[in-house]
């Protein structure tokens, strides 16, 4: 039930968040307490890759929760962004992780590794 101006404000907030982080995961819950199996899987993959990332808990913000689906034209959460580009959800992350493509992407983009 958002009007157009609210929605464009949400989209602008999302674009700002995506632009500020090299690796950003929109998820349900937090990395310590994922609230959904798919988000949990996405976190596990990022941790295995030892990559430094930020996360946004969509459950805390209805504007972002709805807006992110329009932003990427993608109906599900989690959603991973690397250097501002939409990479995919947890299934795509898993496929890319298993084939080594996700590591390659992280490498190619020069993203910082976690300490």
């Amino acid at each position: 039930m958002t009007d157009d101006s609210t929605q464009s404000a949400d989209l602008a907030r999302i674009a700002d968040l995506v632009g500020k982080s090299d690796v950003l995961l929109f998820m349900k819950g937090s990395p310590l307490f994922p609230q959904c199996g798919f988000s949990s899987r996405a976190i596990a993959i990022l941790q295995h890759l030892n990559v430094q990332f930020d996360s946004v808990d969509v459950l805390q913000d209805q504007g972002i929760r709805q807006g992110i689906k329009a932003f990427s034209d993608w109906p599900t959460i989690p959603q991973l962004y690397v250097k501002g580009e939409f990479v995919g959800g947890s299934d795509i992350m898993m496929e890319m992780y298993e084939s080594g493509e996700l590591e390659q992407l992280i490498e190619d983009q020069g993203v910082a590794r976690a300490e």
Partner: protein
Amino acid sequence: MAMAASEIEALIVAGIPGATVEITDLAGDGDHYAARVVAESFRGVSRVERTRLVYAALGGRMGAELHALQLTTALPDAPLGSGPEQG
């Protein structure tokens, strides 16, 4: 608001002609599925776009009544056992 596996399969096949769909009921509760969609029309199409095609076939149900669907896509000539079920 679960969907039957047969309904999911029918929608995907209708939306992506020639696709073969393999559905696994992950939890036995009719609500958590894995789907593997194999289609020649995926050739030259990125993973994200393949998934979008499947979501489009599901006609807005994805993310709504259909929350728990693990989805993998492949080409018909992909090596056997390359799916996520491989241990």
